[in-house]
């Protein structure tokens, strides 16, 4: 049942906007609307998505000034009147229309040592993991990150200092630091405590406020601040 028309304003360049009239439907998501525009109004519109169910983390965009996973954001929840403004994610270089270059975001995961540092080979038995230890509970708190870069786009500190590692990479480092299977705690702490690391965080909390999976990168970064401070004291002793 198509009732009214939505006024969808899409940013298509540094100063270029185009407004499209899109038929409104029940339970319509922001991604549905963008797809409608691409399929029915302008096939040259570029945007990115894959799973459409909040698993892959590829469809994040700025929606009325808030970074959101568009596949799980209902238009009815974000529209003002019948209008919605959609732009590419903040803090990342735009390739075209709504598509941003995610390379700087993922490069920072590597820079924060957000990679698995294992000790076993495929011939060893699987490491037992006790799910009840406090460290594991802390690690579990961050493992549902889908790399959508919503937190990265929300962070004013990333805007202010382009080399800051950002909430997602630091939360990944915190998760690995608490993972008993990871063997490189000192390497992680060195990586996250350099000049672009966790101590840049001003605890503005936009990462935590806007994370679509309701994770808490701000507290993860606070954890890294504590651990880097403790390790400094240990080294001085």
């Amino acid at each position, binding site marked *: 049942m198509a009732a009214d028309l939505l006024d969808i*304003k899409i*940013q298509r360049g*540094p*100063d270029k*906007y185009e407004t499209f009239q899109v038929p409104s439907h029940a339970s319509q998501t922001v991604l549905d609307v963008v797809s409608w525009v691409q399929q029915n109004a302008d096939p040259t519109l570029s945007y990115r998505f894959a799973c459409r169910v909040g698993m892959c983390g590829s469809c994040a965009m*700025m929606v*009325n*000034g*808030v*970074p959101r996973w568009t596949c799980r954001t209902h238009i009815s929840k974000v529209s003002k009147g019948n209008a919605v*403004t*959609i*732009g*590419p*994610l*903040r803090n990342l270089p*735009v390739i075209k229309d709504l598509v941003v270059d995610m390379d700087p975001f993922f490069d920072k995961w590597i820079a924060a040592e957000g990679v698995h540092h294992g000790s076993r080979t495929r011939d060893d038995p699987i490491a037992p993991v006790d799910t009840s230890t406090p460290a594991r509970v*802390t690690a579990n*708190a961050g493992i549902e990150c889908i790399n959508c870069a919503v937190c990265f*786009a*929300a962070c*004013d500190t990333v805007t202010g200092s382009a080399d800051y590692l950002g909430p997602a990479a630091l939360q990944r480092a915190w998760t690995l630091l608490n993972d008993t299977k990871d063997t490189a705690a000192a390497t992680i702490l060195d990586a996250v405590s350099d000049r672009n690391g966790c101590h840049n965080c*001003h*605890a*503005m*909390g*936009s990462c*935590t*406020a806007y994370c679509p999976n309701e994770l*808490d990168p*701000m*507290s993860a970064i*606070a*954890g890294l*601040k*504590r651990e880097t401070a403790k390790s400094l004291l240990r080294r001085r002793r």
Partner: protein
Amino acid sequence: MKTARNIISRAHPLWNAYILHRLSGLGLALFLPVHFWVLAMAVTAPAQLDGFLHLTETPVVKLAEVGLVFLLAVHMFGGLRLMALEWLPWSPSQKTMAALATALSFFVAALFFLKAI
């Protein structure tokens, strides 16, 4: 240049707590030199100081004092919040803490205001 992608909504308690803490700090930093200058008058120009102290009886200055106490309270509770947030591994209650710190600051400032009038 403000484009759609560069406008971000900061309307959430954590960011409000952050900005209140920073602005109150700035306000206090601006106040302190004036404060010391007036105190120094006790040594350099006692007569001028007396004149100034009469001025503090006026409602405008009283009102300004309320603002000052508010800044102090906001900054103190903001600092306590920040230390708790960074050094105590609490998690989802941080928003509540931010709101509580602000509420307490308002409460203290309001108490002072009621006493002053």
